[in-house]
């Protein structure tokens, strides 16, 4: 089982349903993977959930899902087998209740694919199997057969929100009440989307389809702007911002400054971890202290933006974001008739 088989084959869907890819998802169950940082940005979850419900798709979440554990793996707190076992457990829980698993976070998406990739290693696979077997032996509660086996052929397909929204972009467009009114938008994909590819032998996988955010901005009536630090990291860097705050914030500052320099009205991204780093008021203050300038460029997650454009109430799309610089200004511009 290759990790690439786990990700939804977007080309196949587009080929089968060239006129209306949304049809492919009708009558099937779409599960939203709960990202921990959605706690700070509920609009990231609600934005996609409300949209999918309006499009009459069957949306669920899994009560039994845990954190993807990427943060622990990256900090050497768990082994590869334990990481793979946690992800396999989540996959198992979701596989029997859903057909598609959607991700609002680059990190979670990367974790589930990486957990599977690790299973290609015989030793990791053996140890993961052992962990899951131990688990099976101790759990009395069994609500479906084959619980916590390594899935040979998972039914559920993984898809990043950005890829999904791009695939059904025409249907998304039909739900919008407002447009971007020519606002200049700097896009930020985030490292674990931009650099994600499990198959290096296919150069295509790296080079194409990295303009989806820009294309969506144009489709929604905005102007994507090019900037020098377009590809650079947000500064989080697997907790570098906590370990080496001043240096990591230099990366954050340079990115924000670069987008500001080209006159971007805001930065758009598909990942709540990047959003957290690029928007946290405390970090903006620290950057002012370290580098002498307080940058006030607003930052928005794609799901939040879609909620705004659909005319959702402020509380539903950017709740808890009152301290984010000038976000209310963007909200007012967009929702102004």
């Amino acid at each position: 089982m290759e990790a690439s088989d786990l990700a939804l084959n977007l080309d196949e869907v587009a080929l089968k349903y060239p006129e209306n890819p949304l049809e492919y998802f009708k009558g099937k169950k779409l599960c939203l993977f709960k990202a921990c940082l959605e706690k700070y940005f509920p609009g990231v979850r609600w934005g996609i959930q409300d949209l999918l419900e309006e499009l009459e798709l069957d949306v669920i979440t899994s009560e039994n899902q845990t954190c993807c554990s990427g943060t622990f793996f990256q900090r050497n707190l768990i082994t590869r087998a334990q990481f793979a076992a946690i992800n396999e457990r989540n996959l198992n829980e979701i596989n029997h209740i859903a057909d598609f698993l959607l991700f609002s976070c680059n990190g979670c998406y990367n974790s589930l694919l990486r957990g599977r990739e690790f299973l290609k290693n015989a030793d990791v696979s053996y140890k993961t199997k052992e962990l899951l077997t131990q688990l099976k032996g101790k759990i009395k509660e069994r609500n479906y057969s084959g619980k916590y086996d390594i899935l040979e052929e998972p039914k559920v397909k993984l898809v990043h929100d950005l890829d999904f929204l791009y695939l059904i972009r025409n249907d998304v467009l039909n739900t919008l009440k407002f447009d971007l009114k020519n606002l200049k938008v700097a896009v930020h994909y985030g490292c674990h989307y931009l650099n994600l590819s499990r198959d290096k032998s296919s150069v295509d996988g790296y080079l194409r389809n990295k303009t989806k955010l820009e294309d969506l901005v144009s489709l929604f009536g905005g102007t994507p702007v090019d900037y020098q630090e377009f590809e650079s990291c947000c500064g989080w860097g697997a907790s570098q911002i906590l370990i080496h705050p001043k240096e990591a914030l230099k990366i954050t500052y340079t990115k924000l400054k670069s987008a500001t320099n080209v006159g971007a009205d805001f930065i758009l991204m598909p990942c709540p971890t990047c959003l957290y780093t690029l928007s946290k008021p405390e970090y903006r203050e620290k950057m002012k202290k370290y580098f002498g300038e307080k940058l006030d460029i607003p930052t928005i997650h794609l799901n939040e933006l879609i909620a705004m454009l659909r005319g959702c109430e402020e509380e539903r799309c950017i709740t808890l974001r009152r301290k984010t610089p000038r976000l209310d200004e963007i909200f007012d511009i967009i929702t102004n008739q």
Partner: protein
Amino acid sequence: MEDYSDSNWNWDFYKELIEDVEENKNIVQCISCGKCVGDCPAAKISNFNSRKIIMKVLKGDKSVLKDSDIWWCFLCEKCKRVCPRNNINIPLLIINLRNESFKKGYGPRYNDLRKYVEMAERFLTQGIVLEEPLGESLPESRVKELNEICGFARIKYVFKASKNKTKPNKKNK
């Protein structure tokens, strides 16, 4: 220009590493082109240089485990993307080296370990890393599954350490 050939490589350290993470055997493919360093965020703000780290490993220079350099990596995977070779996974090598560093007792000087103790505790007791998540939490009856999986992991040691070191002013007094 530093001489780059396999004539002065020492395989002992390399073998130790790939015993743990087999995939790292691919670092022998490195041609030392430096592409990985070119747009590396860590290289912009520190002495982190993945090309030099690979070279040290191939030469059997274990000082790399003591150097602070390995703790600067952002794990952003850009190097993996721009590397002209097929299967060199530098982020995985760095995680591997950090593990070895831990084993030898060098480790990092994290100033935020406290935060990770709290996060590890929440993960093992609630299945989440941040308190009060959006929506429902993992049912209590299912949390034990995480303990089962992470039973002998470092995460457990950190969790235990946090219990032992808990001061009276903490919540579980």
